[in-house]
């Protein structure tokens, strides 16, 4: 198998940066690697037939509402538009998520696209994570309007980003087009300096669904 090379090679260096508050760094930042990311898009507003296929293919049914993620068993199904979802799971040898979804959706009005190599996923966490994202994102990320497992496509410093609220720490997963990843990374590092930013190694973020 071809070895995948991170778009952040040379840019992401673990360590503490900026000026941390007394309680420690306000932002924890890292790249989530080794993820299988597959987009499933329903054709012609025929969502119902596709939802069942996604559930059969990956074990998790998409959330009933828009702008919501469903998670289970290390797999996440993120809403990314009307009739369109991203299915995300840790890559496992001998288990091809895209192939499983394609098989489950073989007769459904759906398009299955493997985006694993086209996205870079960042995890931004910590008490100041929300303040940091507010600097470059027009969404209201307050827990009241953006609770755990809310997900939405928006902008982060001019780069289109799918944002998923992972837990109430708060932690957010940011799905970026690979070619924007380095720019976004630098924007985040600079914007997080005032809160203190701890960059963690990708290995510390595996398997946390």
């Amino acid at each position: 198998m071809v070895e995948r090379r991170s778009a952040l090679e040379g840019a992401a260096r673990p360590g503490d940066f900026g000026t941390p508050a007394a309680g420690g760094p306000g932002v924890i930042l890292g790249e989530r690697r080794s993820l299988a990311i597959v987009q499933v898009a329903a054709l012609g507003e025929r969502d119902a037939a596709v939802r069942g296929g996604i559930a059969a293919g990956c074990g998790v049914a998409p959330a009933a509402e828009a702008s919501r993620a469903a998670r289970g068993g290390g797999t996440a199904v993120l809403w990314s538009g009307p009739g369109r979802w991203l299915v995300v799971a840790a890559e496992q040898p001998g288990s091809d998520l895209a192939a499983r979804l394609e098989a489950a959706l073989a007769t459904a009005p759906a398009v299955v696209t493997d985006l694993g190599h086209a996205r870079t996923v960042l995890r931004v966490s910590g008490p100041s994570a929300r303040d940091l994202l507010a600097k470059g994102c027009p969404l209201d990320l307050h827990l009241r309007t953006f609770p755990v497992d809310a997900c939405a496509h928006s902008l982060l410093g001019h780069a289109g980003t799918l944002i998923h609220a992972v837990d109430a720490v708060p932690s957010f997963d940011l799905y970026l087009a690979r070619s924007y990843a380095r720019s976004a990374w630098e924007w985040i590092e600079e914007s997080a300096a005032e809160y203190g930013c701890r960059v963690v190694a990708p290995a510390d973020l595996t398997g946390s669904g």
Partner: protein
Amino acid sequence: MLLIPCPFCGPRDQIEFTYGGDATLTRPDPATASEEAWAAYVYLRDNPKGPHSEYWHHHAGCRAWIKVRRDTLTHEISASAAATAPLAGEAGKP
């Protein structure tokens, strides 16, 4: 700055959208339309004062084309819908 109610995502900041033009036009029938009808469809626009139906593309969000009724005088937005659906109080296109 507008807060545009996307029918799929809810209220979102204007910077997530691209303006897509007049939504009241109907494309002429290619089989029968005259050159004048095409020219009018492509180039001629009213400049209404008041409520106006227009297309917006939620390019940074759900990427859907939507239809919005916006008051060109006050910027008040009174309705929105998917691009293929009629706005509230509007007859659907055939």
